[in-house]
Structures are given as structure tokens and as C-alpha cells.
């Protein structure tokens, strides 16, 4: 039958067309890699990879210029670390509250609250950190500037909390009801059930949530650009200014001559940033695949 054959071919072509469109994400990811490396690698004709990553001096516009990004990497690590210390407990505990303790009415208010926090544009959070938190810190701690590590970490935490909270909630939600009921039936209190049954059962999901939250904090740009202070030096106290990777790129790209060494160096920072978040995402993906929560037998 000719018609059936035609129809079959058409269906086949449609499926392949959709397959092609679905690969667009991989294609874009590939293009991101290509263009980052294309514009970033030329800097390594001027400095070696080791000098670039571990050099402590970042004076990209001096003659001769210094392209060492160690202080910039340290800046990123410090604000990400401190913001995680704030965001992880807040995110995980709020998720526990929303999914295990809150009544249905409270839940319906809290979930949108977390979503709205996630939706707040980063520039607005950065702005708030600049005009409200910075003067506040300056006054309270009597320090020269409120644009510092503490302030940036706090604002970054506000960006990471919704990610951690909503992903943790998904993980907890996936825990089977039987586990909960069995624990309660054995006489455990609700807290014992949460801490010894539900959290262990959803641990892989919670880890994924934390990693993705931290990944978000590392890559977040506007907050660190506006609030971290911008000093490209290795900090000695939490009230020092730093210049994390995204802030360096965003602040300097506008002023640098096209395809100068400085321009290539900024793309190279982009490569470091991209590889860092890429690794975080791969680890998160690996954990969630390897320790997939399936059924009651996985505990």
C-alpha cells in the first residue's frame, strides 16, 4: 500500500527532525566551549597556564601586564564557601519544613515565597546589598567599606537558597510514604523520622541540591560585581574586598580593547569558570544517577 508507506516515511522524518531539534542544547554547549576557547586560549601565548592560574598579580592594563588570577580564584572560592555555609542550612531546613512539617495552607504560601525569591533578578539583590546592606555593615562593624566578603556571601546565599530548597524538597518528596509510616508506626517521633529515615533516604538528592546551589553561587555575576568590592588581592579577613571570577569578567570586558591580551585573559577566566561549574554539574548528575532513589529497598 503506497499510502501507508508514505505515511510511514513522513512519521520517520518527523521523529528525526525532533531528535535533531532536541540536540540543540548539546550543540549550544559545544558552541560555548568552542568560542570560549577560541577567544581565551591566545592568552597562553603570553603567559603559561601555571602562571595564569597561580600568579598572584592581576595588573592586566600595566606595561608589562600581569595576568595571574590566583587572587580572583580565591575570591570566588571564599564567597562561594561562606555563602554555602549560610545557604545550605537555610535551604535544606526550609525544604524539610515545607515538605514535612507545614500544613497544607502554610505550604501553599511558602512554596511561592521560595519561587519568588528564585525569581528576583540578581541585579536587584546586588543593588540591595549595595545601598542597604553595605552602609549597615559599615556602621555596625565600623569598617572602611561595606562592600566586602561577608556582604557578598550573604547576598549570594539569597540566590542559592531557592535552588537548594526547591531541589531538596523534590528529593524529600520522592521518599516513599511507606518509609515514613513504618518509622512512625515503630514509635519514632516525627523528628526522629525526619532525621533518621527521610533525610538518609533522600541524601543523594540533597547532595545534588547543595552542589547545584553552590554552582549557582560560583557563577553568579551581578551580586559579586556590585557587592564584593572589587579588590583583586588575596583577602586576609572576611571584611576585605574581593574580585571573584564573574565580577572580573563583567567589570573589565567593557573597557578592554578588542582582542588585546587583556580581552583574551578575560575569556580565559571564563574558561576556568565554565570548567568549574561544568564539573559541579557533572558531579551532581553523577550522584543523582548513581544513587537514584528507587523503591523502599534502597535504604
Amino acid at each position, binding site marked *: 500500500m503506497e499510502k501507508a508507506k508514505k505515511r510511514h516515511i*513522513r512519521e520517520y522524518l*518527523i*521523529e528525526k527532525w*525532533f*531528535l535533531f*531539534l*532536541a*540536540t*540543540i*542544547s*548539546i550543540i*549550544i554547549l559545544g558552541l560555548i566551549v568552542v*568560542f*570560549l576557547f*577560541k*577567544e581565551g586560549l591566545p592568552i597562553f601565548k603570553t603567559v603559561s597556564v601555571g602562571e595564569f592560574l597561580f600568579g598572584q598579580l592581576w595588573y592586566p592594563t600595566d606595561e608589562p601586564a600581569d595576568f595571574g588570577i590566583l587572587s580572583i580564584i580565591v575570591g570566588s572560592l571564599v564567597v562561594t564557601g561562606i555563602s554555602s555555609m549560610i545557604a545550605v542550612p537555610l535551604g535544606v*531546613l*526550609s525544604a524539610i*519544613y515545607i515538605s514535612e*512539617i507545614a500544613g497544607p495552607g502554610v505550604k*501553599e504560601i511558602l512554596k*511561592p*515565597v521560595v519561587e*519568588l*525569591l528564585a*525569581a*528576583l*533578578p*540578581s*541585579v*536587584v539583590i546586588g*543593588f*540591595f546589598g*549595595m*545601598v542597604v546592606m553595605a552602609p549597615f555593615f559599615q556602621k555596625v562593624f565600623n569598617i572602611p567599606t561595606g562592600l566586602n566578603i561577608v556582604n557578598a556571601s550573604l547576598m549570594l546565599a*539569597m540566590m542559592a537558597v531557592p535552588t537548594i530548597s526547591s531541589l531538596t524538597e523534590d528529593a524529600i518528596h520522592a521518599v516513599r510514604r511507606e518509609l515514613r509510616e513504618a518509622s512512625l508506626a515503630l514509635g519514632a*517521633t*516525627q*523528628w*526522629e523520622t525526619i532525621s533518621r529515615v527521610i533525610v538518609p533516604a533522600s541524601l543523594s538528592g540533597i547532595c545534588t541540591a547543595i552542589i*547545584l546551589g553552590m*554552582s549557582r553561587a*560560583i*557563577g553568579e*555575576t551581578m551580586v559579586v560585581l*556590585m557587592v564584593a568590592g572589587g579588590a583583586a588581592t588575596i583577602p586576609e579577613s572576611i571584611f576585605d574586598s574581593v574580585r571573584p571570577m*564573574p565580577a572580573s*569578567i*563583567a567589570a573589565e*570586558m*567593557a573597557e578592554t580593547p*578588542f582582542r588585546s591580551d587583556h580581552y583574551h585573559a578575560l*575569556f580565559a577566566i*571564563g574558561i576556568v*569558570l565554565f570548567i568549574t*561549574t*561544568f564539573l559541579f*554539574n557533572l558531579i*551532581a*548528575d553523577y550522584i543523582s544517577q548513581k544513587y537514584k532513589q528507587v523503591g523502599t529497598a534502597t535504604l
Partner: protein
Amino acid sequence: MESRKKRKLIEGMAFGVIRLSTVIICLALAIMLGFILVNGYKAINWTFLTEPPMDAMTKGGIFPAIVGTFYLTLGAITIAFPLGVASAIYLSEYAREGKMVRLIRIGINNLAGVPSVVFGLFGLGLFVVFLGFGSSILSGSLTLGFLILPVIIGASEEALKAVPQTYREASLALGGTRWQTIYRVVLPAALPGILTGSILGIGRAAGETAPIMFTAAAFYTTKLPSSVFDEVMALPYHIYVLATAGTHIDETRHLQYGTALVLIAFVLGINLVAIIIRTRIRRKQTY
């Protein structure tokens, strides 16, 4: 064995800490919104919304920035919507779990995790320089569109998966082909969910700053764009510029708050709409 009383006490303390964390998050949101609302509403009037900035951006309004953000967002969703929905259709309707699907999913997850400033670099390298679009609405829209692609894919796939299998079986049993089933049965049923996801994507695109800094945003222009190759002002970038780069940072504080309020009202408004639609769908969903 610990006494029941002691165990209850521990529970009480633990719940206290948990409640406190939740309260802190709510307070943080309330304080941030409160400050911007209280300081921003005074700046907002008809002139502010309909006039360009004047006197070296110390007076006047933000009209060009509103228009710019509108165009950029519209462009981004025009690019991301078809690609995102198509990807979701493949993943939900055609794909069988295997290496290819695994690869696609890793691609999507990693794309979602790419820092926004790296998207900016990518847009600069590919659209602005390599393809020669310059700093323009087109470059900015493409960059933002790729940035929100994972959001659209995620929401669309969830919406498609929520359509009960019986719908598909009924259509196939009536002799419908795979494509007819998707096009006439599954898509219409999933449409509200897909639209909700797209609305969230719009909100995200409107609020992003770093991706448009090197690809589309102009520091200052009173001229409204006449083609997709024009640079535009944009609300998020305008806030950044006023707050950090002006010579009159303190005098323009009210304008900064005002711009932030307009942006927040737009982004949160969009999100609220999406949340409300979604709640309605979930209530209505009897399957």
C-alpha cells in the same frame, strides 16, 4: 532508652530551628521587597515611565529601557519557545531511554548550569564578533534565548509527561499516527503547562543582566530601536549603570530604586501569574 519526654523535647528544639530558618527566608524576601517598594514608589509617575533619561541620566524616565527589555525578552522567547517545546516533545514522546537521551539530558542540565556571564562571553564571541551582528537586539535575544532554553524544556517536558497515557492510547487506537497523536491530542492537553513554563522563562530573561552587558545593552540612548541590529537600553543594566557608573550616584538614588521597582514588579508579576495559572491547572486536573 531515652524517655518519651526527652525525645519530644529534642523534637521541639529541632522544629524550632527548622521553623526559624523558614522565617529567615521569608523575612529576607519581605525586607528586600519592602525596601525597594518604600523607596521606589515615590519615583514612579507617568513621566518616569514614558520619558527618556535627561540631564546625564540624573532626571527623566526610563522609557527606552522598558522598550529595550520588552524587545529583548520578546526576542528571547521567540527563539527559545519553539526549540524548547520541540526538545521536550522529543524527550517525552519519542525518545527511549538510552545513550542519546542520556547525552541530551546531560547537555540540558549543563546548559542550565552555565554561568550567566559565560553566556555573555559566548554571545560576544559568536553573535557580536563572529557572525557580525554587533551589540544589538538580535545578539542579546539569541544569548538570552539560549539561556532560558533549559527552563522551557524542563517545564514543557513536565507538562507533556502529565498528560495521561490513556489519551495517547485512545488516539493511536483510533488509527492516529504518532505525530497526529502528539499534535492533536497531547499538545493541546499539555498547552497550559507549557505556557506556564514559558512565562517563567520570560521572567528570567527580563531580569538577566550579565548576558546582555556585552551583547545588547547600551549605556545611554534616547533613540528607540528601529531594527534588530540596534543597541538598546535595558532595565537591569540601567539599574547597574545608575548604581555604579554614574557621576551622581547618590542624587539618582530614587531613580535607581524606581527602576528596580519597575523591574521587580514586572518579573514578580509574571511569576505570580505563572504560579496562579499552575495552581488552577493542578486543581482542575482530574486525571
